[in-house]
């Protein structure tokens, strides 16, 4: 039996899907209204899944008193109420990384994978209640 723990966090941020690799008309064709030059926003919900042995002394895989601040400083403080294209270094214009939620999964996974107290298995993001994206270490070469 394998045991994992999943914690959900929330942040709100704006983004614009647009790449200089494509022409304006191509951007419009690919991204549609998501390419509106002024950007738009979402209430993101992020599920962070960690696994590992249950510590018999605490009954826990990872103490939330340690996981929560780890996510708070690396994700929520960096992303909440921000414009992802301009204010998150991974999406800076010179990086040419479009802040789709696919790419956001990879960025968040990279920011959290150093969590020292348990193994990071998965990051799942709901961009809206209808759209979700997830990255699992074993299934993604970039994880």
């Amino acid at each position, binding site marked *: *039996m*394998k*045991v*994992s*723990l*999943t*914690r*959900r*966090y929330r942040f709100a941020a704006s983004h614009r899907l647009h790449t200089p690799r494509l022409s304006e008309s191509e951007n419009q064709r690919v991204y549609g209204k998501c390419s509106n030059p002024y950007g738009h926003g979402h209430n993101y919900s992020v*599920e962070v*899944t960690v696994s590992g042995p*249950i510590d*018999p*002394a*605490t*009954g*826990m*895989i990872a*103490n*939330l*008193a340690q996981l929560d601040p780890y996510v708070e400083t690396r994700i929520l403080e960096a992303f909440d109420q921000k414009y992802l294209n301009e204010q998150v270094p991974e999406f800076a214009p010179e990086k040419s990384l479009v802040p789709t939620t696919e790419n956001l999964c990879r960025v968040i996974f990279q920011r959290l994978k150093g969590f020292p107290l348990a193994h990071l*298995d*998965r990051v*799942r993001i709901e961009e809206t209640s209808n759209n979700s994206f*997830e990255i*699992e*270490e*074993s*299934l993604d070469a970039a994880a």
Partner: protein
Amino acid sequence: MIRITRKVEFSAAHFYHNPNFSPEENLRLFGKCNNPHGHGHNYTLEVTIAGEPDPTTGMVLDLKELKEILQTEVIDRMDHRHLNYEVPELAGQIPTCENIAALIWKLLLPRITRGQLDRVRLYESPDLFVDCTASNSNHNGARA
């Protein structure tokens, strides 16, 4: 292979305390969950069974049968109970979501005789859940 999932809910009280640690250490480790008067949650349990549908009934496992198993093994044992005092199988353990989910997995495993127990997911709140899966499961993370 098909997966089927049944959801049940139960409400229970618990608190976290390790008698091997000082009161200060307990408070540091467990915070407000260390309150000796306890507190409670509405737990949501999702149990997933995987298997081939029976050619005659079209079912992996009759969900009615699974419902009865969950009633006997989980609801009768834990609903409206204090997990620290009233569930003998948790004696000597901190009744965290991890330990409760692992206990439920162990209780259900011998009771599932058609299909295979694939996943036990226990929500302590909408923002916190634990998954137990078979070690050889194709669930690498927490999700089907």
